[in-house]
C-alpha cells in the first residue's frame, strides 16, 4: 500500500478495522475522540459493531462481554476514563480474554488538561486494576508504529489470551504523518472457549472468580507463567548509536522520538550518546537494557511525567550505571534543546563522554 498522511488516532482506528476488530465500545474523551468518531461511521458501514457507551465503566464491560464471544474487540480512552476502566480491566485479565485497549494519555492528575502526557505509565504497566497481573503494553512513537502496533496488539492478545494496551499520548494521537496502512486480515475462527450458546458441546463458562485459595493461587500461577513467557518473547526496543554510546538516553513514545532529535544533535556536537527506545513497556526490554548498562557510563531517562519508567530502567540497570532523569509533567512537552542541555551537563558532570 502507498503511504498516506494519517492522524494517529484515525490510523489506529483504521488499522484495527483491517486487523479484524469486530466491535468497538467507547466513550468520548479528548484527545482520543477522533478514534471513536472515525469508527462510528466506519464500523457501521462495514456491518460491524460500534456503540457509544454511557460511560467508560460501561464501555469496558461491554468489551468484556464482547470478548467473551471470541471476537476481536477494542475500546479507547484517555487518562481519567482509563482510571474508570480499572475494575473491568482486572476482570478481563482474570478471565483470560484477549482484547485491545487504547489509552491516549493526557495531562493529570485529576481533570488536568487535554495536553499530551505519559503520566499513566504506572497505571498501564503496573496494575491496571487490582490483583497480580500486567497487561502487555505497547508504546508507539510514530503514526506508522501506532498502526503496526495496533495489528500486533490484536495478534498478541489472541496469541496469549491476554489484555493488550496501546499506550500513546495526545501528540501521537493527533499528529498527522505519512504512514502505510496494513493489509486486511482474514477472519479468524471462533475460539473454542467462547460463549456462543452451548449447542453440541458442554457449556463454556467465563469467570474471574476463584473462591478457594488453592484454586485461586493455581490460577494466579497460570497467569504468572504466561507473563514469564511474555517477558521471554516479547521485549521490544529500538536503538540508535548504541554501538559506541557512553551515555544512553532512554525514552518511550513521544518522549523517545523527541529524545532522538536531541541525540542526533549531540552526535552532531561530537558526543558519544545513544538512544534506547522501549516499544514494549510491559514486558519492559530489561534484558537488552541490562546488557547496554554494562557498556555505557550513565543513563538518562526522558519522560513526559515525573519519572515512572525510571523505575523500570533502574530495575534493569540494577546499579550498574548511574541513572539520571529529565522530565516534563502535566502536559508540558520537552524540547530537544533542553534534553540536549541535560545531555551535555551529564557528559561533563559524570565524565562519561570524553
Amino acid at each position: 500500500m502507498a503511504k498516506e498522511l494519517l492522524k494517529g488516532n484515525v490510523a489506529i482506528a483504521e488499522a484495527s478495522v483491517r486487523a479484524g476488530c469486530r466491535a468497538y465500545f467507547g466513550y468520548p474523551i479528548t484527545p482520543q475522540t477522533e478514534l471513536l468518531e472515525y469508527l462510528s461511521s466506519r464500523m457501521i458501514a462495514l456491518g460491524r459493531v460500534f456503540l457509544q457507551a454511557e460511560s467508560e465503566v460501561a464501555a469496558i464491560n461491554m468489551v468484556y462481554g464482547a470478548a467473551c464471544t471470541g471476537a476481536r474487540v477494542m475500546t479507547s480512552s484517555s487518562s481519567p476514563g482509563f482510571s474508570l476502566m480499572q475494575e473491568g480491566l482486572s476482570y478481563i485479565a482474570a478471565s483470560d480474554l484477549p482484547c485491545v485497549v487504547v489509552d491516549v494519555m493526557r495531562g493529570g492528575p485529576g481533570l488536568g488538561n487535554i495536553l499530551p502526557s505519559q503520566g499513566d505509565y504506572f497505571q498501564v504497566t503496573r496494575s491496571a486494576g487490582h490483583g497480580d497481573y500486567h497487561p502487555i503494553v505497547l508504546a508507539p512513537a510514530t503514526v506508522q508504529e501506532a498502526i503496526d502496533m495496533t495489528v500486533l496488539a490484536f495478534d498478541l492478545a489472541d496469541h496469549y489470551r491476554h489484555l493488550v494496551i496501546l499506550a500513546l499520548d495526545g501528540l501521537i494521537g493527533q499528529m498527522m504523518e505519512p504512514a502505510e496502512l496494513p493489509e486486511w486480515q482474514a477472519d479468524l475462527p471462533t475460539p473454542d472457549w467462547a460463549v456462543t450458546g452451548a449447542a453440541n458441546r458442554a457449556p463454556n463458562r467465563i469467570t474471574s472468580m476463584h473462591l478457594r485459595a488453592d484454586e485461586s493461587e493455581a490460577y494466579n500461577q497460570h497467569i504468572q507463567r504466561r507473563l514469564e513467557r511474555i517477558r521471554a518473547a516479547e521485549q521490544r526496543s529500538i536503538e540508535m548509536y548504541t554501538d559506541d554510546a557512553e551515555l544512553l538516553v532512554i525514552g518511550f513514545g513521544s518522549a523517545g522520538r523527541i529524545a532522538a532529535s536531541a541525540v542526533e544533535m549531540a552526535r552532531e556536537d561530537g558526543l558519544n550518546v545513544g538512544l534506547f527506545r522501549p516499544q514494549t513497556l510491559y514486558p519492559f526490554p530489561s534484558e537488552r537494557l541490562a546488557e547496554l548498562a554494562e557498556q555505557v557510563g550513565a543513563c538518562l531517562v526522558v519522560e513526559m511525567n515525573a519519572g515512572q519508567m525510571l523505575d523500570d530502567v533502574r530495575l534493569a540497570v540494577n546499579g550498574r550505571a548511574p541513572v539520571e532523569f529529565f522530565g516534563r509533567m502535566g502536559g508540558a512537552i520537552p524540547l530537544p534543546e533542553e534534553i540536549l542541555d541535560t545531555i551535555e551537563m551529564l557528559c561533563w558532570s559524570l565524565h562519561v563522554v570524553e
Partner: protein
Amino acid sequence: MNNHNGNDRTEFVFSGFGGQGVMFVGQLLAYAAMDAGFNVTWIPSYGPEMRGGTAHCTTIVSRKPIGSPMSPRPHVAVVLNLPSFTRYEPLVREEGLLVVNSALVSLTSHRQDIQTLDIPATTIAENLGSVRAANMVLLGAALTAKPALPLAAAHSALEAHLPPQHRSLLALNHAALDAGAAVVLERL
C-alpha cells in the same frame, strides 16, 4: 554548538480564527511535502483555548526523520488575525519568515532579524471570489519567499487532496496560491 536545524528542516506555523482554514492549509502543505518525498508532520494546536478561540497548527517539512514534531520557534509563521500576530511575531526564529494577513492585522513587525511579508490576503481572496481562500494566498506567498517546497507541489496537493465536497473551489484555490506568489514576486 551547531545550528542543529540547518536547511534540512523547515517548521511552519499557521494561525488564525477557527473558520479561516488554518488547519487545512497546514495539512495541504504536509500533503505537498509528503508527495514530494519529504518527511513531514502536522500537529494541531495544543493550547488552553476552548471554544471560539484561535486555531493553529504546525507543519514540519524535513529531509531527515522528524523527532520532535513541535515548533516553539518556527522558521515560518503565517498569521491570519491579530491574536495570532501577537502570539507568533516574537517567536519566529532569527532569519525566519513572518507572513501576515494585513487585511485583518493592523500591526506590523519591527523585528529586524526576520523577513516580514504583509499581504492583504483576505482582500485578495475576496477579489478572487471568496475570503475563504485567504489561507491559500498566504501559503503561495510563504512558499515563494521560503521555497522549502516548489509551489507546484502545493498545486498538485490541492488537486490530489482537496476534499470532494470542496472541489468546486479548486480553481479558486489554485488562483489564490498563484496570487499570493505573485505578490511576493512583484515585491522582489
